[in-house]
């Protein structure tokens, strides 16, 4: 018994080492969202494409869609744009943009220069919709189901791997669930 006790420090060391090892690979910037499985907040905002019409929650797609927070100032958004463009061309999923804390004329130029994968981009110039969505910086991407409930959130750039391994499976899961109901 006392022999076994000798191994206690080794055990403690191993547990600590394992925890710290895991800590090395945690990204402190990706905070868990408290808004998963909560309905989208209410809003009443114009879009870049239609400046004189305001949209609300009810106007959003009634099938699962992506909600992408972007801005013309945001370099990572430029990086993930080709992925969204390809997805839009292949009609994989409707993508709605939220132009977050940007100048609408700059956003318009950005879309002309880089192409728009969005059905439309909701203008959130003062960032209030962003706050209600718990956003802390572009890019962030939500998966919203057909009933306007947030089902998934990805923080940061979406590259091809993330698209294939995270976004598409999560989207398929939401779709399967919607089809069951």
């Amino acid at each position, binding site marked *: 018994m006392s022999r076994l006790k000798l191994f206690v420090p080794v055990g403690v060391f191993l547990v600590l080492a394992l925890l710290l090892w895991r800590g090395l690979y945690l990204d*402190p*910037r990706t*905070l*868990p*969202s*408290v*808004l998963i499985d909560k309905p989208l907040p209410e809003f009443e905002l114009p879009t870049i494409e239609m400046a004189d019409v305001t949209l609300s929650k009810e106007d959003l797609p009634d099938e699962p869609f992506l909600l992408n927070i972007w801005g013309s100032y945001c370099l990572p958004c430029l990086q993930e744009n080709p992925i969204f463009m390809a997805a839009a061309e292949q009609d994989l999923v409707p993508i709605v943009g939220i132009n977050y*804390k940007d100048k609408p004329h700059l956003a318009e130029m950005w879309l002309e220069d880089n192409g728009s994968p969005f059905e439309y981009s909701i203008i959130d110039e*003062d*960032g*209030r919709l*962003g*706050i*209600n*969505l*718990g*956003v*802390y*910086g572009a890019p962030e991407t939500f998966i919203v189901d057909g009933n306007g409930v947030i089902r998934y959130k990805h923080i940061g750039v979406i590259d091809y791997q993330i698209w294939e391994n995270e976004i598409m499976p999560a989207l398929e899961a939401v779709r399967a669930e919607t089809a069951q109901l």
Partner: protein
Amino acid sequence: MSRLMFAPARSMRLTLLTLLAALMLSAGPVQAAVDAFAFDTPEQEERFRHLSNEFRCPMCQNTNLTGSSGGVAEDLRREIYMMIMEGQSDEEITRFMLDRYGDFILYRPRLTGETILLWFGPLLFLLVGGWVVMGIIRRARPVERVAVELDSAEQERLRKLLEKVDEPS
């Protein structure tokens, strides 16, 4: 000449260092963000300052809302200001932040199942440490007792040994 220069040069350097130190000390805390908010009462302003200090900036992570110039921190300060002016209580404002950003936004997290280790982890480590120290102390005691209590045979042997030391052969 070079010898004469030596002393004044050193004192000059000292003066400069002192000046530099004085400058650094007098700079005080740097206010990163200055918003032009107008309050009706000093109490509202005090509440605003208190709340901005209590919430953590979700973007820059290791500063509070007061010390952060990040876009979202600016917006959150504006929200706090507007809610104070609307007459909302501190609890309502905290609830607003929690509903959107979760426990992360609080520098003093609430006591819940998820944060219990955060609150009492240090106490746990103290208890484990205390337990280890107690074990060491308890094990050390018998060694002392054996060293002090000799029976008569041992006393005799000790006396003989000491005699040997006194009269080296």
